[in-house]
């Protein structure tokens, strides 16, 4: 079954440019704490419990980026 969830998150990150000779390339690690704005229970006819997406969601990522443009 499918379920839509809307979340809002605060983020902390750091954009790192490892090569000064090629500053178009960046590595950006970030962490984010996500809180639900909209999340509903999903009913399963054959299950004893309904399912609700977690209220708290802690996520981290690491973006690898290329900057476009002349400068």
């Amino acid at each position: 079954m499918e379920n839509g969830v809307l979340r809002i998150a605060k983020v902390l990150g750091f954009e790192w440019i490892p090569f000064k000779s090629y500053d178009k390339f960046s590595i950006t690690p970030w962490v984010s704490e996500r809180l639900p704005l909209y999340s509903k229970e999903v009913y399963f006819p054959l299950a004893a419990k309904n399912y609700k997406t977690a209220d708290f969601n802690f996520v981290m990522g690491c973006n690898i980026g290329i900057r476009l443009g002349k400068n």
Partner: protein
Amino acid sequence: MLYGSFVYNNVRHMKNKNNMKKKIALIALTIVIGNFVYGQKAENFDYKQGKSFSLQMDAFDFMAKGFSLWGNYTFNYNRIFLDGDINQLPDFLNSLSDDFTEKIKYFIQAGYYRFIKKPNELFIGVELIYQQMKISNKSTS
């Protein structure tokens, strides 16, 4: 005839004046918009003081059998972004994860980042995320 010509000339003069005003307004608007879009970029060769557009991918999504594409627009200390993503990351923090399996089918997020000290280092931000989850019951699936 002379009067008619005078009126016609006045009307034409007014029309020309209005057209001229429109042209001046259009030129002024073009300069303002052009300055906003390109002005800082031309003055400050260092992109960190100007504007830039970048494409990013989240390396962690590859680990979660997924893929993401981020479009970032950075201006001075500000960055706005739009991100589309699919991955197979289970929601392992959920207390019901013993009975259910939940994976992200796809998600879309948009956000704003503010660089703290320098435009390319530490930042804080806020994101708004819509996630379409796929849920299955372990006992019945």
